[in-house]
């Protein structure tokens, strides 16, 4: 009984803290948790505030989108577009425009992930959401003190907290290094032997291609999601993230591109390569765009999204 009393006491105390001083900006303790947090913010947040949505893997998860433009980036690092589409299908009013990254379309729906983010408790009680978990609340509290302006100015907070790893919501080194210009390393290391080995490994994976049966299954699934979203007034656009030119021509990606083009009419695709030359783009590991390119691609995509919304 004493234990139960203590549990209620601490629970109430914590609930009061979270209610009185909610985290100003969610901070997560890792990439996977950031995925879950991002998904919950999308599911339980204000849907009216989003007119466009970006869905995909870590390739698009790194594209900086501003809430000012009402674009929400639901790219899931290590995840798939299918998981993102499943999340969209669970909300009552989906955004008008949904951009779906096709690079890893063969990845299936992660049901465990969906289960972990869309629980009844989290849906009804905000205390049980990822962003309000005590560890994340503590991290967020240290980064953005709830009493507003801190005694230390913003840049000092960053320099003070950087050794503690509290400067960004996504803890992945590459995520922070490549996509946030002010944090990007001043001196980029030139691609060395390790990079070449990395590309070689990825090329062999790409060369193996993808099981056609699996791919067809995914496309069927994608078609069904698109149909449901269109019935609810959303427009779906498929796009491809640029990768290293050697991988761009890999068997797997060519296969994905070809089969998608044969299933969906041209108006479903947005091909930025017609406007921008990607051949000179550099990546951090062959797949993920490097800092400047990431910004560049994101700004072009933002423009296109704004154009299509209007």
């Amino acid at each position, binding site marked *: 009984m004493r234990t139960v009393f203590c549990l209620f006491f601490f629970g109430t105390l914590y609930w009061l803290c979270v209610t009185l001083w909610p985290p100003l900006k969610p901070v997560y303790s890792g990439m996977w948790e950031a995925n879950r947090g991002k998904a919950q913010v999308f599911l339980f947040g204000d849907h009216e505030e989003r007119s466009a949505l970006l869905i995909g893997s870590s390739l698009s998860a790194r594209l900086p989108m501003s809430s000012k433009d009402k674009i929400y980036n639901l790219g899931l690092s290590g995840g798939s577009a299918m998981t993102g589409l499943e999340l969209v299908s669970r909300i009552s009013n989906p955004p008008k425009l949904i951009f779906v990254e096709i690079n890893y379309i063969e990845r299936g729906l992660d049901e465990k992930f969906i289960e972990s983010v869309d629980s009844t408790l989290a849906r009804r009680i905000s205390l049980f959401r990822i962003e309000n*978990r005590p560890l994340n609340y503590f991290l967020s509290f240290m980064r953005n003190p709830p009493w507003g302006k801190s005694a230390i100015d913003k840049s000092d907070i960053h320099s003070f907290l950087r050794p503690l790893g*509290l400067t960004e919501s996504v803890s992945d*080194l590459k995520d922070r290094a490549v996509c946030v210009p002010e944090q990007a390393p001043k001196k980029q290391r030139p691609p060395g032997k390790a990079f070449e080995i990395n590309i070689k490994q990825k090329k062999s994976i790409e060369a193996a291609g993808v099981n056609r049966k699996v791919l067809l299954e995914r496309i069927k699934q994608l078609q069904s999601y698109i149909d449901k979203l269109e019935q609810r007034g959303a427009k779906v656009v498929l796009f491809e993230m640029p990768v290293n030119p050697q991988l761009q021509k890999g068997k797997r990606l060519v296969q994905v591109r070809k089969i998608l083009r044969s299933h969906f009419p041209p108006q479903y695709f947005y091909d930025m390569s017609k406007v921008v030359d990607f051949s000179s783009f550099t990546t951090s590991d062959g797949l993920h765009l490097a800092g400047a390119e990431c910004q560049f691609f994101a700004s072009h995509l933002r423009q296109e999204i704004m154009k299509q919304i209007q």
Partner: protein
Amino acid sequence: MDFTSGDFFVFCTVVFFLYYIPVLHKWQQLVLIAASLVFYAWQAPILLVLLACSCLISSWSSYGVLTANNSSGRIRIAALGVVANLMVLAFFKYKFLFFDPSQLRAIHAGWTRTVLLLPLPIGISFYTFHGISLLVDCYRGKSDFFEQYKPNFWRHIFDTLLYLVFFPQLIAGPIVKSKDFFPQIQIKRFTQINWDYACNSMIVGFFLKMVIANNMQDQTFWMNAPYYKAHSTLNLSILLIGYSVQIFADFAGYSLIALGLAALFGYRLPENFNFPYISQSIAEFWQRWHISLSSWLRDYLYIPLGGNRKGMLRTYLNLIIVMFLGGLWHGAAWSFAIWGLWHGVGLCVERFFFKIFFVGASNRVMIMLRVLFVFTFVSFGWLFFKLQNFSDVIGYVSALITHLGWRFDPAVPWVIFLLSLPVIIYHLAYILCIKLTMWPRAILNGILLFFIITNAGPNVAFVYFQF
């Protein structure tokens, strides 16, 4: 069924009430056996067939040993039973060491292929070891209990069934010796439950598993290939420490939950962990880590092999054999065998340099250095658990040596530190002999429960489930 799942909570509650209903008192043992079988069959009912076969082998042969008239008959039946148990284990666990299932799929057809491709039944390593323990204990008859234990056939079958399938320890131990479990089989009363022990064990266990191990999993993900290649020496070292904390929290957490659950049903299982990361030697580590396995290996393998009674060289050989087989027990991969050898060789070297290693035995600095050395040694060993591909282990170690410099990604280490803190405090509290009285214990339990409810990580299977 996972201990941390909602299904298990409902299952356990129902079984608990059925178990203690006065009208079912006479059938308590049957209730527990039936519940354990449901628990085991929850995801793959087909596996019950193998479990049933294993139970029959162990119960028939042990009954044969108990009732045989002469010693040669007893030894023959016991040997047959042990060999049969080992064959079941060897076939299901180690067959894939010798052939590639994908090749088999392409070449053969028919029932041989079906049998050869049967998956590894969950918990097989544990229940076959229980079976062997029963046979050996019945044969030796050394304990007071087995000297006087003369049951009828059906009584023995049910006792054996409960011993082998008792659900808190069925999937991942602790490995209970039959001489410790059989005497406990009797009618249990609700009033006899040791609530403090059961609740404390379960709360600490669930905290270690759900809050520490499951959240740590997200951080140590970066140890996997190819991600480790991008990290510096410092980060890789911190990740390795994180994994040591994770594997401890995962397995010790599971064991504590098992102990607490067993206590709810009136059974006392042996402690499986005794603060292993304060060990000052590798030998001491094995007296504190997975105690039930190490004592099983000592009693049923090391001592029968001759232990340390047959000279120095033979002792070293015995240590290496036992640790090698202990490593292989964990899984059908050479990385586990190498992990066993790593510890076996470590034990031999430590034994050889015993006097040098224990210089200044009571000096605090020396004690800390020894603890640090053992922790580092053990942590390197965990690489074989985390990275089951041997080339990745080599890659990780070479990255650890070559990626020098102070390039430091602070995010992961900071979270690893926060998550390791409770485990460090847990060990420190033991060293400082801190005993909590009623209210501080309740406050601590309240805090732990609060974290279990609000800060549990994503559900990840227990590391030892694969064994």
